[in-house]
């Protein structure tokens, strides 16, 4: 059985012993990572190393998208422009109304002696990498600490909440999507104002938890962030209710929702960071990941 290159006798351990050793090291890695979060240094090192590679390998796709855009039909572009112009007009009207309301709100808050809401600043980021979603659903963005990002910040796209930054490296960051299992988002139902907790279930879906069976929920209701956790700003659209089932055994409804943001389509997203408070009296809006 002495094959050339096969490791028998002599100075080296047999495969079984070496498997046992590496297995022990592997278990140590898992424990260090899960229990003590001691592997974040290695993570940031790998992130630093792989980030330029990812950006370079993303380039062909970007060029393909550009080319595709270049050959878009003229009429299609015109149609899209007309729609955008109409939407802009509508949005302008809305913005006027919102400005009016904001003024009114500010004076009312002043009358009631309430603190001003912290402002938001948005930082643009693009998706550079997506890993397997066997255990949690995460995407990697091309911005990091250098752009002023920090752990726990909300990430949105044009339609709604995408997720939350859970790991931030020097030049990149990882977003845990709202649909990721065990990712909790405090929400309220837009129509009734009832507060609840949306939890990701994986497979790009969420469920609204702990709603009593007599609660007023209908299919099609929109869920917005409630903002009571001070992580997400209030009233970001999160999900839409798609199915409600009454369970025979439990006291709660089973409410399934789909996220409004294009979790698997979004290429460009915005990361919301709190603006520095205008007056020193306001405490910094600290947020901790609800994970």
């Amino acid at each position, binding site marked *: 059985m002495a094959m050339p290159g096969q490791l028998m006798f002599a100075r080296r351990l047999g495969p079984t012993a070496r498997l046992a050793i590496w297995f022990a090291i592997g278990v140590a890695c898992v424990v260090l*990572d899960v229990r003590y979060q001691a592997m974040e240094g290695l993570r940031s090192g790998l992130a630093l190393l*792989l980030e330029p590679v990812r950006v370079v390998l993303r380039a062909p796709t970007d060029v393909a998208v550009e080319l595709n855009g270049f050959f878009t039909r003229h009429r299609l572009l015109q149609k899209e422009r007309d729609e955008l112009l109409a939407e802009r007009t509508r949005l302008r009207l809305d913005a006027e109304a919102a400005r009016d309301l904001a003024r009114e709100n500010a004076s009312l808050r002043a009358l009631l002696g309430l603190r001003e809401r912290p402002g938001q600043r948005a930082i643009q980021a693009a998706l550079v990498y997506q890993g397997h979603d066997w255990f949690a659903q995460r995407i990697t963005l091309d911005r990091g600490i250098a752009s002023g990002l920090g752990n726990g910040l909300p990430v949105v796209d044009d339609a709604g909440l995408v997720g939350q930054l859970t790991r931030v490296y020097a030049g990149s960051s990882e977003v845990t999507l709202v649909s990721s299992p065990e990712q909790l988002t405090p929400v309220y139902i837009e129509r009734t104002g009832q507060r609840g907790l949306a939890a990701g279930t994986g497979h790009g879906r969420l469920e609204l938890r702990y709603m009593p069976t007599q609660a007023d929920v209908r299919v099609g209701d929109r869920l917005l962030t409630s903002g009571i956790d001070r992580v997400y700003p209030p009233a970001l659209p999160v999900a839409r209710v798609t199915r409600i089932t009454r369970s025979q055994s439990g006291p709660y409804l089973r409410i399934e929702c789909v996220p409004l943001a294009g979790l698997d389509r979004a290429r460009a997203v915005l990361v919301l960071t709190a603006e520095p408070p205008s007056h020193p009296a306001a405490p910094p809006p600290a947020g901790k990941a609800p994970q």
Partner: protein
Amino acid sequence: MNAAPHETGSWRRIAGTLTLAVLLTELPWDGWALSLRPDFILVVVLFWVLHQPARVGFGIAFMLGLLADFQDGVVFGQHAIAYALGVYLVLFLRVRLLRFDPLRQAAQMFPILLAVQLAAMLAGWLAVEPPQGLAILLPVPSSVLLWYAIALFRRAWHGKSLRDAE
């Protein structure tokens, strides 16, 4: 005996193929392509373990497993343990595997790759939380196909002479 340098596995070639595997994994895969993406790194590592066991072994497999863990954003050690198991199985079945033609060799690799994937699933399950369905097993058949392609390529590259020499 194991120090005799083979023409087949110079360090440059090993490093080149491993780098290529990492780069392929770093491509922006998504959707179905991502679910079905073969585990390039694992297949290349096991290929070299089969043909150059003195040069590529547990250490390299473990480090590349840590890299795979980083790429998926999962807990460190999950793929590393699984890859080490894969190396062990290939070393264990090495003599047998080398006797087969590419198709049968790929068929023999199926249970090994399946065991590696199951080990990764189990490690993640015990460490963090249950996995999302059985999609974790989808890369196994595609990895087997990749193995078949590589084995065919190797035979075409070296011709029959080297096979007889072994």
